């Protein structure tokens, strides 16, 4: 009973639609069609836009593709060398065989000690700039100093490290002097990201806390810092990635060409005092590729891949944390 009725109505509906699509508003022959067809100027505009988009896309690809190619090539070349024993063995035979244990441990401690120095100072400096500093000429100078400190070339940091820590402070060429130099170099990263994280906490949170009679420092401790701690962390992680990759600042302040470490036992993990010199992964790559003869390429590429892997892994952690934070922001 119902079937024909339904069929008919569907047919009618189709007819209706066909009627509409056959003569859309603005189609040739209907009034006002000039409005909807592209004039030569508009067509040219479309072409120009497409060309511009294509050229910009090419420029972007010209950055991404070489990076991908380089990373792939490095990985392929390094493949024969990469193994667990490559990581936990010392370099042997004038560094022409063996692994990268000693440089790896050296980089680890350089990064940690520089982090222990830079993180408290940087975070407190960020707190000062966002919570205490008034908007006056002095604050502007501090901001200018932070920007310029970030722009100081790494080799100048190396000279500063030699002049200030190695010579003036009497640390000599040591793990401590190198870590201090790295800390100074990476300080602006932490200051800037801390300030941004603090600035993202709404002012209303602070006002509510002040209204309860809390002092400035109590407010910062109990409200501002807990609400921005993850943002601060992303900056701290970025510091780690920068410190791990730098070579020039540690070249003359504490990194050593070659040293062996015990491969087993507690001595393998903290084998030196703060006054000793140590190997570092970044400097090891430089030494292997330019200073030592007869190194198998796989060893060089392997070192490069471990260094890049370390830095990119730490960076991904920071980026991941940032994306996660943005997704669950409450205010």
């Amino acid at each position, binding site marked *: 009973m119902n079937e024909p009725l339904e069929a008919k109505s569907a047919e009618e509906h189709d007819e209706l639609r066909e009627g509409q699509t056959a003569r859309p508003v603005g189609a040739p022959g209907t009034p006002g069609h000039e409005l909807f067809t592209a004039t030569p100027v508009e067509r040219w505009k479309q072409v120009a836009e497409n060309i511009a988009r294509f*050229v*910009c896309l090419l420029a972007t690809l010209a950055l991404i593709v070489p990076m991908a190619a380089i990373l792939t*090539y490095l990985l392929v070349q390094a493949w024969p060398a990469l193994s667990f024993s490559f990581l936990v063995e010392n370099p042997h035979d004038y560094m022409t065989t063996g692994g990268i244990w000693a440089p790896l441990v050296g980089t680890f401690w350089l990064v940690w000690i520089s982090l222990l120095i830079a993180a408290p100072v940087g975070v407190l400096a960020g707190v000062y700039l966002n919570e205490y500093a008034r908007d006056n000429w002095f604050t502007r100078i501090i901001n200018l100093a932070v920007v310029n400190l970030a722009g100081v070339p790494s080799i100048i940091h190396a*000279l500063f490290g030699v002049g200030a820590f190695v010579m003036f402070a009497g640390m000599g060429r040591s793990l401590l002097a190198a870590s201090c130099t790295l800390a100074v170099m990476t300080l602006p990263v932490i200051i800037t990201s801390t300030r941004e994280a603090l600035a993202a906490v709404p002012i209303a949170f602070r006002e509510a806390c002040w209204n309860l009679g809390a002092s400035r420092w109590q407010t910062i401790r109990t409200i501002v810092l807990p609400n921005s701690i993850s943002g601060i962390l992303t900056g701290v992680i970025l510091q780690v990635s920068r410190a791990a990759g730098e070579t020039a600042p540690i*070249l003359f302040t504490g990194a050593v060409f070659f040293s062996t470490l015990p491969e087993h036992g507690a001595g393998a993990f903290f084998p030196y005092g703060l006054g000793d010199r140590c190997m570092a992964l970044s400097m090891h790559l430089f030494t292997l590729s330019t200073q030592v003869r007869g190194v198998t390429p796989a060893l*060089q590429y392997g070192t490069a891949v471990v260094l890049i892997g370390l830095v990119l892994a730490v960076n991904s952690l920071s980026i991941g944390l940032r994306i996660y934070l943005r997704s669950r922001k409450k205010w």
Partner: protein
Amino acid sequence: MLQVVLDRTEPAVEWLIRLCGWSAILLVFGIFFFVFREALPMLGGKLNLTEFFTSAEWRPTAEPEPHYGILALLLGSLSVTALAMLLAVPLGLGAAVFISEFSSGRVRETLKVLIEFLAAIPSVVWGFVGYMMLGPIIIRLTGAPVGVCLLNGGIILALMSVPIIVSVGEDALRAVPDSYREAALSMGAGRWEIVYRVLFPAAKNGLLAAVLLGVGRAIGETMAVLMATGHAVQIPHSLLDPIRTLTATIAAELGEAVQGEPHYRVLFVIGLVVFVLTFIVNLTADLVVKGIRNERAA
């Protein structure tokens, strides 16, 4: 208990915070002071400054008369930076425009992350890439006797300084209010016309700052140019000439120079030159950015 202690120590803590806040100023002055202190004994007349800046002869260990002329090194630094900018500025601004105006959502976020990765690659790895990978490619393509040269260093430096151009340039383009784009659209402008006629003029200071920061990064770069440019003291005449830069000279020779000797101190003088160069470039970039901010506020 802990609360009480934390609250009691508030004045002390506030002073500590203030002190840390001032650390940036102290450090910038400290860097200048300590580099200057090591360079000072040479500056008091012992170093012939005319020869220093105009002679291309860099023979710091020659006997009996060492020559300290940095002209070749200075030209090396400037030429490799110029070449890098020639490559990096169009690519960087193109990529900034693509990310900011021609892409959206997932694509934009992915591209930004990739650019961040590009920025994260350590300079010694870039040097390694130039030395081990790009060098042989240049030899094969051009038939040059050595692959580590001005061209090699320029390409590597371009890839290294492009991320900062992209990210600062993109920020500058995003900072242009959407009402500008809407106004242009309503007058019938296409996307490209908006970029070219509206965004570029409106964001020109930010884009200029992006380029300047790229220059600052390129001039100061050390490890990559040390490994990729061939390290030969000469005034470059072609793209395939090996060159040497100011920064690479410091990195290569500071380890051998005897502490306190003229050679050692001259390296610190070169450090001062590099420091002042980058300081001027970065300061200009900062003032250019401040310029827009004040204009906006007014």
